[in-house]
C-alpha cells in the first residue's frame, strides 16, 4: 500500500520490532462441560512471522483461534497480546486491539457486495457519528471515500477488481475465500488469524492463496497465524509450526524439526496405544 497514506503508514508503529513477541498464550485450558477441547497449551507468536497451527481433526486448532480472538473464554490461562495481559477478552476488544481473522467455512456477509464486505472490515476505523452519516455530506463522505481508497488498494492487491460490485453470495468458493482475506486485511490487523485458508481449493487456487499470504506477510509486515491441513503448504509457508493433538501441544518448532518429531508422526499416522 502507499506509504504516503497516513491511514496505512501508522500501523507499523505499534512499538514492537520484528522478531519480538507479539502474542503469548499461557497455559490455556478450555472445556465444554466434560469435554476438554484444549489442555494447558502455551506458545508464542513473534512479530512478522508466519506461525502455523496443525494437527489432526478435532485437535483443538480452531478452538485455539477462537480463544485468541475472544470468541471462547478459556477456563484457565492468560493471553498476552502486545504486552497486554488478559484472562479473557471480548471479540470487540480483540478486533480493536488488532486481531483479525478468516473462517474455515466462509463467513462473508452474503447479501452485501464485495466492496461492502471489504468496507465492513474498516468498521473500526470509521468514527463519524450517526448525524453526519445521515447527511452523508462533508466529513462523513470524505471519511467514506478515504476508506474506499484503502479498500480499493486491497481489491487491487487481491486482484478482485472485476467482482467489486457483485454480491458475494453469487461468487465461486475460491473468490469468496479471497474476499474474506480482503475483509480481514481491511482491518489492518497486527495479527491475522487464518483458519484453513486453502481448504477445498484446487492446486492453482492454493498457489494463488499462498502467494497472497506471503505477500501480506512481507509487504504489510502482518504477523500471521494459520491453520492448514495441506502439509506441503505449511512446510513451505510457515516460519514455525505448532502441532496439536487431542487438545494438547505435541510439537513446536521449525518446520523440519516438527516433521521429524516422533510424536507428530504418531499423531498423524496413528499408533496403537
Amino acid at each position, binding site marked *: 500500500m502507499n506509504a504516503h497514506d497516513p491511514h496505512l503508514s501508522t500501523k507499523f508503529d505499534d512499538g514492537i520490532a520484528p522478531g519480538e513477541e507479539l502474542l503469548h498464550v499461557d497455559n490455556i485450558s478450555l472445556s465444554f462441560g466434560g469435554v476438554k477441547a484444549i489442555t494447558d497449551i502455551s506458545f508464542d507468536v513473534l512479530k512478522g512471522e508466519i506461525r502455523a497451527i496443525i494437527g489432526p481433526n478435532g485437535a483443538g486448532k480452531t478452538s485455539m483461534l477462537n480463544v485468541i*480472538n475472544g*470468541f471462547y473464554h478459556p477456563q484457565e490461562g492468560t493471553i498476552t497480546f502486545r504486552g497486554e495481559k488478559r484472562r479473557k477478552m471480548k*471479540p*470487540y476488544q480483540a478486533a480493536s486491539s488488532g486481531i483479525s481473522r478468516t473462517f474455515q467455512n466462509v*463467513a*462473508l456477509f*452474503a447479501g452485501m457486495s464485495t466492496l461492502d464486505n471489504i468496507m*465492513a*472490515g474498516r*468498521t473500526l476505523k470509521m468514527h463519524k457519528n450517526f448525524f453526519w452519516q445521515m447527511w452523508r455530506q462533508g466529513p462523513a463522505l470524505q471519511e467514506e471515500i478515504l476508506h474506499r481508497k484503502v479498500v480499493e488498494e486491497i481489491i487491487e492487491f487481491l486482484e478482485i477488481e472485476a467482482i467489486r460490485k457483485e454480491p458475494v453470495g453469487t461468487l465461486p468458493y475460491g473468490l469468496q475465500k479471497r474476499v474474506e482475506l480482503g475483509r480481514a486485511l481491511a482491518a489492518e490487523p497486527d495479527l491475522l488469524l487464518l483458519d484453513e485458508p486453502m481448504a477445498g481449493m484446487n492446486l492453482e487456487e492454493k498457489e494463488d492463496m499462498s502467494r497472497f499470504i506471503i505477500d501480506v506477510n512481507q509487504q504489510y509486515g502482518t504477523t500471521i497465524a494459520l491453520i492448514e491441513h495441506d502439509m506441503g503448504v505449511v512446510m513451505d509457508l510457515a516460519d514455525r509450526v505448532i502441532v496439536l493433538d487431542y487438545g494438547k501441544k505435541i510439537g513446536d518448532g521449525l518446520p523440519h524439526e516438527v516433521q521429524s518429531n516422533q510424536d507428530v508422526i504418531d499423531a498423524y499416522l496413528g499408533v496403537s496405544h
Partner: protein
Amino acid sequence: MFYREAGQFKATYEADSAKFPIFQDKLFIWFYLVIGFVAIPLLGNEFFLGAIMIPFLVFTLAAIGLNILTGFTGQISLGSGAFMGVGAYACYKMTLAYPEVNILIFIFASGIFSAIVGVFFGLPSLRIKGFYLVVSTLAAQFFLEWAFQRIPWLYNYNNTGAIDGVSRWLFGIQITGGGADRTAQYIVCLAIVVVMTWFASNIISGRIGRSWMMIRDMDIAAELMGVRPLYAKLSAFAVSSFYCGVAGSMMVFLWLGAAEPESFDYNHSFEILFMVILGGLGSLLGCFLGAAVIWILPILIREWLPPLIDKITPWVITSSTADLVSDIIIGIMIVVFLIMEPHGLARLWAIIKQKLRVWPFPY
C-alpha cells in the same frame, strides 16, 4: 431500460458511490419529484389525495421503518403498529401541552418517544432471534395497545377514549384537525417522506448501515470485525421505531384526523410486514412498491371491480365482496412472492431493468 450507462465514466469514488450513478436515473428521480410535488397536488381530487396518496405515504414511511429493522438488520418485528401508536399519542400529548409550537416539530419529536420505547422492546433481541423475537415484539404490540386503552392520561381523559387531530397551522394554512387543507397535508407528508427516505438511504450506505447488514448476514463475523451487537441492534430498533413513530403521528394528524387504540392493533403490524415482504426486504424502493400494492390495489379493486362485473357478467357483487377478492389476491401474491422471489417487487424490478439493459440479447 431504454437507456444504458454506456459512456458515463466515473472518475471519482464519490461519483461511483452516488445514489443514482446514471444520469438518466437522476433525471427520472427529478421527474417523479416534480410529479409528486406539482402535478399531483394540482390534478388530484380530495379522494385521490386523502384516500390514496396520503395513506400510501404514511405506510411507506412505516414500511421503511420496519425494513430498516427486518430487511437491513434481520430482526423480525411485529410491533410496528404499536410503535406508530406511540408516535401518535406522543404527538397528541405534546401538541396539547404546547399548542404554540409548530406541529412539524412535534411530528418529528414524537419519533424520539417511539424510538425510546422501541429500544426498550428491542432489548430482548440481544438474546433471542427469529420466531422468539417475533413473539417478544408481539408482546410490545399487546402491551402498548393495552396502554392506549387503559391509561386515560394518554388520551387526555376524554369521553370517547380516542385521540383527535387538533387544529394546527403551518405557514397560515391549516394542516391538521377538521377542515384541514388536503393538498397542504399531502405536500407535508410527501416532503417528510422524501427527506426521511433520503436520510435512510444515507445511513444505510454508510458505516452504521453496513454494521446493520453485517449483523443480519453473519452476526459472529460481524462481532469479530468489531461491530458490537448491542449498539447495532438497538440503533436499528431506535431508527426503525423513529420512522414508525413519525408515520404514526402523520397517520393521525395528517391523514385520519382521529384515532382509537384499535387503529394501532396488530393488523397494522402485519400489514406493514406484508408491505415489506412483498416490496422487498432490504430495499427502500421496495417500501414504496409494497405500500403501493398493499394499500392501493384493494382500493382500485373496490372501486372498479363491482361496476366491471356488473357490466360484463350477469352477476352483481358488492364492494365488501370486492374486498374479499383483494384479500385473496394479496394473499396469493404474498405466497407466490415468498416462493418465487423472496426479495420482492424491488428485485423483480431490478431483474426487469437488467433484462432491458441487455435487450435484445439474453445476457
